[in-house]
């Protein structure tokens, strides 16, 4: 019973946060509502004994990803709150509402109509990748991650490296523009980027 209560509280936190992300005018509020949702998801992980994932969820998502969002929001200016009253593309919102309701209806139908929600091969009790093999959560994930999923794990390393390089390449200023002497010392603005210098970059 206590599990049910915890689930309901966590679900309320998650759904309220999700609606807040979508409905906030100010992107900073959206980011903070996103943190709320991520904490709720961490609680959901804890209910299901996925302790490692709950910790990673908070460290990586709330600690890194949302902070990155906030950095970019601050970089681009906080004062740009969007006016949600106007609808620039006629019919966009009704259409989005219809598609969202359709998604919700389809998903709920699939889950609730099926008498036996989950089908598939149940892991052999006590085996390496079974949840009831007596190991701790971290040890179980570590064993499986570095045996069965070792290749995927290594590809992940390559992916992260590519992402870091990509972010650096995308956001650096063109070297040619930086080398130019500043003709107007009063302005600390970046020199305007011209398409020609950009093409030389690549």
């Amino acid at each position, binding site marked *: 019973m206590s599990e*049910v209560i915890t*689930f309901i509280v966590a*679900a309320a936190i*998650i*759904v309220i946060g*999700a*609606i807040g*992300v*979508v409905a906030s005018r100010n*992107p900073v509020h*959206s980011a903070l509502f*996103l943190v709320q949702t*991520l904490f709720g*998801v961490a609680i959901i992980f804890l209910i*299901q004994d*996925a302790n490692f*994932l709950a910790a*990673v*969820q908070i460290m*990586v*998502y709330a600690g*890194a*990803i949302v902070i*990155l969002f906030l950095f*970019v929001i601050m*970089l*681009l200016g906080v004062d*740009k709150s*969007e006016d949600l009253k106007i609808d*620039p*593309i006629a019919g*966009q919102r009704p*259409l989005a509402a219809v*598609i*969202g309701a359709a*998604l919700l209806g389809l*998903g*709920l139908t699939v*889950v609730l109509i099926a008498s036996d*929600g989950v089908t598939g091969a*149940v*892991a052999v*009790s006590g085996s390496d*990748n*079974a949840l009831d093999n007596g190991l701790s959560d971290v040890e179980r*994930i570590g064993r*499986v*991650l570095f045996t069965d*999923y070792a290749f*995927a794990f290594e590809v*992940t390393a390559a*992916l*992260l490296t590519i*992402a*870091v390089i*990509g*972010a650096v390449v*995308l*956001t650096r200023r063109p070297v040619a523009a930086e080398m130019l002497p500043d003709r107007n010392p009063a302005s600390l603005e970046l020199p305007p*980027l011209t398409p020609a210098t950009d093409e030389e970059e690549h």
Partner: protein
Amino acid sequence: MELTTNWYLVLSIFVFSIGAVGLMVRRNPLVMFMSVELMLNSVNIAFVSLGTSLNDVGGQIAVFFVLVVAAVEVVVGLALIVAINRRHPDATADDLSTLRG
């Protein structure tokens, strides 16, 4: 009253739908990204609960990889947003027409 897998799946579907609507409605690219994060998180909930019901750690492994890919996606996506914003301040997702040569 018992907590079954269906509860988690229903929650997951709700969050996914909210994220999808946000992605379609909002025009600020940052908020659109956050909506994508919502959808990724809803799938994570489904992964963990299905893994629990099948007594398999594979669901949690999948969530681990989703987390990595989400981090990568955010890094590259935000770099793109910063790069676009440097050239076109106040750019929104509606300004696709500037992609024409």
